[in-house]
């Protein structure tokens, strides 16, 4: 499973991309985030407040109950801030 991190989630995790193999019990986005938290203190810090964490599966925004599978590209990032002021 490919995980991409952007913006301050990338800097806190300390990596833009990881290839991970979560345990079989991890079946949805919520489960994945809970498992990722355990990978390092940086991960734990990054996912401390899930209200400012957004997730896309295969480049589509999803909710916490969205399923995840081994072939997915999962992107994790803060709320977007494009455009101008």
């Amino acid at each position, binding site marked *: 499973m490919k995980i991409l991190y*952007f*913006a301050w989630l990338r800097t806190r995790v300390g990596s833009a991309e990881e290839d991970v193999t979560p345990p079989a019990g991890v079946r949805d986005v919520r489960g994945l985030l809970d498992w990722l938290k355990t990978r390092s203190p940086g991960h734990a810090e990054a996912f401390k407040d899930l209200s400012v964490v957004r997730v896309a599966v295969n480049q589509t925004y999803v909710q916490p109950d969205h399923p995840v599978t081994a072939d997915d590209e999962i*992107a994790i990032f803060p709320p977007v801030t*494009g*455009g101008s002021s």
Partner: protein
Amino acid sequence: MIRVQRDDFDVGAEIERLTAGKHDIGGVVSFIGLVRDLAGGASIKAMTLEHYPGMTETQLAEIEAEANRRWPLSASLIIHRYGRLEPGERIVLVLAASPHREAAFEACHFLIDWLKTKAPFWKLEDTDKGEKWVAADARDDAAAARWVKG
């Protein structure tokens, strides 16, 4: 049409290209977003726009398609830059052209409002007080919410 690029764009040339030969157009509304030199009391030296290549293009194309479903547009365009930009530099261009000016105004306004809350871009400000990731603004969510159909 949508474009995600590091380079600057030529607003006049983009409008010309978009409208050339289309004589059903009565009004063209454009929005240009620029880097400001101040944010929350801090002086901005530059800002760096990070994005999610692939998803950015998909999202922008979807936002543009939605505008074309909602309004009778003759042409539309979104160009969004990424990378390091200094105060005064252009960040984004949104164009909407329609036979009637109300549709062009509404579509352009919709495009930038939705882009701000849906396109995967993030801004890192380099200020006189250090680097800071820009937090999402609740006013942008409110602006986007205007366009959510009841």
